[in-house]
């Protein structure tokens, strides 16, 4: 998994949480040789203006992604399963708070 080809280090994906309570969102990536350097570089590169209060870094090679060729199968909108949506259900007139 490590980049031994050249001296440009490994690539790490960077996720930033803009404030507590919100999800960590992908911001981009940095090059680094270890976790500590990855966090430091992510801090310098992506949070110079109060963009975040927490950083996650993950080696890019450890990210497994779905195959775009399988998008149709994976992300089918399942329009035949409308019962997954609340609007599918017929309720008696006058039912409240539901």
């Amino acid at each position, binding site marked *: 998994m490590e980049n031994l080809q050249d001296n440009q*280090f490994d*690539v790490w994906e960077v996720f930033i949480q803009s404030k507590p309570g919100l999800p960590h969102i992908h911001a981009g990536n940095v090059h680094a*040789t270890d976790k500590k350097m990855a966090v430091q570089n992510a801090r310098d590169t992506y949070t110079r203006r109060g963009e975040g209060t927490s950083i996650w870094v993950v080696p890019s090679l450890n990210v497994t992604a779905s195959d775009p060729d399988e998008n*149709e199968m994976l992300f089918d909108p399942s329009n035949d399963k409308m019962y997954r949506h609340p609007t599918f259900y017929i309720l008696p007139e006058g039912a409240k708070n539901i």
Partner: protein
Amino acid sequence: MKNLHNDESFQKRIDANEHVEPRDYMPEGYRKHLIRQISQHAHSEVIGMQPEGNWITRAPSLRAKQILLAKIQDEGGHGLYLYSAAETLGVSREEMIEQLHSGKAKYSNIFNYPALNWADIGAIGWLVDGAAIVNQVSLQRTSYGPYSRAMIRICKEESFHQRQGYEIMCKMMAGTLEQKQMAQDAMNRWWWPALMMFGPHDSDSPHTGDAVKWKIKRESNDTLRQKFIDKTVQQAELIGLVIPDKDLKWNAQNGHYDHGTINWEEFFEVINGKGPCNKQRLEHHKKYHLEGEWVREAATAHKMKKIKRERHHLTH
């Protein structure tokens, strides 16, 4: 829409304004065009640190120095965002740097002009960054996802760059006669190169056709250049700077400024290495890249040592 592996369905996705992501099918020409454009853009950010870096130690106040440092740091960051975007296309950072050093990859021509005095720092921020912003705002809608995301981030950070440059020009234009002359002189030297940043006229632009078809480029060179001129004239007039173009005049019929002829001969001379600073900019980059070699080696050696130690723990 279906992600079929042919150019026709790719074009359909583009026409439907879908973004293209790194693992999607893309024609080889699309990939090549992006690698060339994004790496050139990244190199421009990094080489662009040099003319300004030259003035950090000579900034006229602590405030000016802090601002300039922050701006140059941003530019380094912008270079990194862009290198990352290019890397998603299968080119390594090392290859890109090699191409810069060998001259195969270009950077923006504008950085081959020298920053002679403090007024140049004002003119660079106001005009050079101003022109870059017009281009980058348009590129936020580029079809390649990682490039578009990098542009959005860059545009957010960049608007202070132009304002700080304009503020320097405002201050000098409110100063002594000598300061006013310096500001006007910087304006005279930077105006035309700034217009050239948008590239050749649409009629002579070799790369525009495919780039527009693929929505890498969303607006043409001439359209972007016109936007920049229309915005900038009022800002110049407000502080008493004269645009060094005797043919510049408001055209009430089309609602734009007409401008004089751009000296493309100079443009191509500078692109082909005859600008005042081409040699200096590249040599500087090579020198510091080489001088940093031991740092990269040490960091890599440290990593290898740790991996070895971890493996040792696992087996014992």
